[in-house]
């Protein structure tokens, strides 16, 4: 196997691991818009990185974390009308990033690679970064699993029962922000949320417990990754959309399987 395929596969698996663990909660808490806002904002980080000529990864992480904190604030102040505001933040950042990129004089930017992902662009450093992040996400998610599940079921009930709702919620949102920052290269900013949502939704069909659903989501994500990358390499299609197409096909296929209760 070619070296670059192996690199892409390794980085992709780390991303799938993270998106499975984090994606189920995005579904349970009905926060798909959160993933969208974050990933769209990531492009602003790319532009800032290129403009300043400094580490792009740091800029993307910085922008994503800032947006996550902003959203956390909005979420706890319902008077602000969260959905609309978040949509405005996300799309403004995406538009601003895109516009800024075209004005960079000396840099030839492949916008498609950022919007839709590019397996060829994955470096050894990216692999180290994604796996480092995947380990952090996995460890912290195991650590906060129970209180996070509890607050996803009913936030006020969890708070009365002693869960530090605000703190746990903040940790989770920061993890999603960091995951988005490192996963951008594999799937691209436009379809990142799909990778968080579709494998988790597919896994629901087979899962009897919340934990099973997360594990199945990782498996489904892995299958979609393999199929999507195969498609992308064979037909020279962009990576992100190919992986999402594969995930969608899996989602459609399992709809014919009778659902297990509960």
């Amino acid at each position, binding site marked *: 196997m070619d070296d670059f395929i192996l690199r892409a596969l390794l980085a992709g698996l780390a991303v799938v691991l993270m998106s499975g663990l984090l994606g189920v909660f995005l579904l349970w808490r009905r926060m798909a818009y959160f993933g969208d806002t974050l990933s769209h904002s990531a492009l602003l980080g790319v532009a800032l990185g290129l403009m300043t000529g400094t580490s792009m990864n740091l800029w993307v992480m910085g922008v994503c974390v800032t947006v996550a904190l902003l959203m956390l604030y909005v979420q706890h102040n319902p008077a602000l009308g969260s959905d609309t505001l978040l949509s405005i933040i996300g799309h403004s950042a995406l538009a601003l990033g895109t516009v800024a990129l075209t004005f960079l004089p000396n840099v030839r930017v492949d916008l498609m690679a950022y919007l839709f992902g590019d397996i060829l662009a994955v470096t050894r450093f990216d692999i180290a970064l994604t796996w480092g992040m995947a380990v952090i996400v996995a460890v912290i998610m195991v650590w906060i699993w*129970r209180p996070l599940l509890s607050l996803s079921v009913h936030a006020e009930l969890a708070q009365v029962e002693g869960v530090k709702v605000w703190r746990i919620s903040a940790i989770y949102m920061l993890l999603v922000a960091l995951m988005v920052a490192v996963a951008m290269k594999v799937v691209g900013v436009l379809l990142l949320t799909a990778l968080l949502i579709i494998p988790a939704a597919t896994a629901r069909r087979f899962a009897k417990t*919340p934990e099973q659903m997360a594990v199945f989501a990782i498996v489904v994500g892995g299958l979609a990754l393999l199929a999507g990358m195969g498609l992308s390499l064979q037909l020279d299609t962009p990576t992100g959309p190919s992986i999402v197409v594969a995930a969608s096909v899996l989602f459609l296929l399992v709809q014919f399987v009778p659902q297990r209760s509960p």
Partner: protein
Amino acid sequence: MSTTLLAKLEHIGLNFGQRVILHDVSLEVYPQSILTLIGPNGAGKSTVLKILLGLQKPDSGSVWRMPALRVGYVPQKFHLDRLLPLTVERFMGLNLRRHDAVAVRQSAEEVGVLDLLPQAVQSLSGGELQRVLLARALLNHPQVLVLDEPGQGVDVTGLSELYQLINRLKQAHGYGVVMVSHDLHLVMEATDQVLCLNQHICCSGQPEAVSRHPEYLRLFGDVRAAGLAVYTHHHDHQHDMHGCIVPLADEEHQHG
């Protein structure tokens, strides 16, 4: 009634913008005693519970809870997303720091929902859900049980049973109860103290006294008279002086 005070609200006030939600609301919670909040929609009943639970901060007044007070809560609205696969057993166990199958079964048996444990939470009927929520609330041996309309979705026969259950377990667990309820006739039977709320406290005291209070009658009409088959004479509740028949010596009457 024991003298150990479990929790207390003093002169609570809350506004949302220009709108007064609560004005000068005070109450005290004691062990083995049931305090019921009644009042029309939008009277601020659920808000009082949330302030008592620490979920909402009041603009004025003070909230006091006994240090390390264990609280069980049955919220008014409970909806679990269909995409979250959760059995009743797992759901109940989430109240504990670590899942304890024995404790969960014990609590479920006490409330009569043992059969429901392997079912999906989403498959429960309204009445079943209320019992499961109660069983979950009882799991960490609460000293105060806060129930926001525990009777919603429960059919007529189940309703009386549910309130009897809450009353019966009160002896065994020794908890104090604060609840919001719309089931006036049942509440009147099984309550130690009634607090009639409409932004401010209209009247409070023992059920028998409150049900004769002019403020109560103005809000709810005469429940006892309406229950009778023959109801011939007309009341003008604004000026009706039912209260004259029974002296209301033991109650506080506060006006905002």
